[in-house]
């Protein structure tokens, strides 16, 4: 097992390098800000529309659904900040043959290829999501205890790990298929479904959004933790599933890496 400081120091280093890169493009900050605010108002409008017709949705009250929305925005920002850029870079590197340099470095390939890119301006979405979540919790009225806060933190971490594994498993296909850019649209499309609690979806879809694309664990479960709806066995199931995904996707990635052939001579 790699010592913990290394697991933190290397990502921090890449974060710093990426921050240096992105800070040169101030306009991106304003573009992201406008985009985030527009997305927020659209989401709020949809929520308001739904609750103009009903008092609750499949057992979820307006503040609880607002909490789901907050988590959805924040986790979405997290994915676009740290996970998606790395996977897209991996796809590009395999296609262009520029993965060579990363693989000749004396570092765990999966770790290195998962931390190289960081989009700092996407943190705006994380902040917006956090604000929406704070508003929802306040509106909900019930105080969030230590247990709820810890449950929320654990659920977010586990959810992020599962989404990362999902992306890595999909992206590993690039070693065979090469053209994989479509997975961004594929994921974004499916991720939109996470705007609503997965419990409102019918049977098969619910299973798919739990185990196929782990939206339930990434969005619904953290929101449940903050609104007093979380059953602890759900968290245990999340931890077990996350551990399984980590092991399985690592094995898949290592197997896929053996098929790297470089773009050309």
């Amino acid at each position, binding site marked *: 097992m790699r010592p913990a400081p290394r697991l933190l120091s290397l990502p921090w280093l890449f974060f710093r390098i990426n921050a240096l890169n992105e800070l040169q493009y101030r306009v991106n900050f304003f573009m992201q800000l406008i985009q985030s605010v527009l997305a927020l108002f659209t989401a709020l409008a949809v929520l308001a529309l739904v609750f103009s017709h009903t008092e609750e949705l499949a057992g979820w009250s307006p503040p609880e659904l607002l909490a789901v929305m907050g988590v959805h925005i924040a986790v979405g920002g997290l994915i676009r900040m740290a996970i998606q850029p790395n996977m897209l870079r991996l796809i590009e590197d395999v296609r262009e043959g520029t993965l060579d340099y990363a693989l000749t470095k*004396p570092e765990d390939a999966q770790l290195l290829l998962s931390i190289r890119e960081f989009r700092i301006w996407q943190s705006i979405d994380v902040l917006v999501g956090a604000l929406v979540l704070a508003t929802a919790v306040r509106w909900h009225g019930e105080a969030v205890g230590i247990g709820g806060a810890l449950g929320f933190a654990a659920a977010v971490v586990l959810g992020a790990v599962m989404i990362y594994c999902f992306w890595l498993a999909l992206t590993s296909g690039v070693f065979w298929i090469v053209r994989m850019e479509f997975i961004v649209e594929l994921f974004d499309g499916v991720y939109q479904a996470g705007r609503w609690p997965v419990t409102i979806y019918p049977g098969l879809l619910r299973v798919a959004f739990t185990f196929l694309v782990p939206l339930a664990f990434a969005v619904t479960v953290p929101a449940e933790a903050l609104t007093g709806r979380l059953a602890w066995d759900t968290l245990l199931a999340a931890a077990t599933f996350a551990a399984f995904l980590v092991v399985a996707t690592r094995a898949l990635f290592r197997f896929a890496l053996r098929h790297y052939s470089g773009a050309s001579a």
Partner: protein
Amino acid sequence: MDIRVAGLRKTFRVPEREAGLRAALRSLAHRSYREVHAVDGVSFDIPTGEVVGFLGPNGAGKTTTLKILSGLLHVSGGEATVLGRIPARRERELLSRITLLMGNRNQLQWDIPALDSYEMNRAIYRLDPATFRSTRDELVELLDIGDLVRKPVRNLSLGERMKAEIVGSLLHRPQVLFLDEPTIGLDVTMQKRLRSFVAEYNRRYGATVLLTSHYMADVIALCRRVIVIHHGQILFDGALSALSDTFAAYKTITVTVADPLARFDVYGEVTAVDGSRVSIRVGKQDVSRVAADVLRDHPVTDLTIEEPPVEDVIDQVFTGPVTA
């Protein structure tokens, strides 16, 4: 022995189809593949501190071999070890002591100064700050790029960028260097500078270098030994000076005579007449006889016999013998 390669094979399975829409549609349902033997039974050893030129036309298997030796590709057969380890295992102990530099690829971050990218390499290679700084400053001085490393990489010229790349690749003072076309696209002055740098690095650190280049000047300047590969197989492995003996079908006899307009084409192909000097291309087996004939038939004041240029010999190896 730093590099050992025995019976190395690498086979790629590549899809292929005929041209046209019908073939494209057919390949959707039934795709056919062809096996390409990029490296086909290659064997060689390179001892510590040797600089070896790895020559061959495009697609000969040079880069594939280099990629296997630097741990990027898994072998299809045979064995390869570098510093006693199997590269494909990507062990930290090995990767910390080798480097792969490709002239047509960048590894430095585009938008920030090279110094920041070097800092990243320091962390990845776990170099202690003092050693890192002294190596970095030494390399920066050797390549004379003091101020350039503070500019964003995107603002550097191709040659400047290449020098900055080289510093980044050598910060960990690798023992084995795999250089794949390091001077490609550079102007003549910059090529010379890089050559003398590689020679100096080899001298200073006793590093082993395996170099591919299409510029024979690189090879002549740096390598006493060359390995010639073609269609994935080794055609020649030996001293650069012995390459001509093995492959050259002709030599050039140059004579200085009072009457350069006399008929010399009876001895062979006259390739140049420069004042009183006449150059005649003669089949290797006829050199002694022709030299004696010329000396007998003409009042010669000087006579030299030269091997053909290495470029011509290499070209001959890949394309078949040239006319004597």
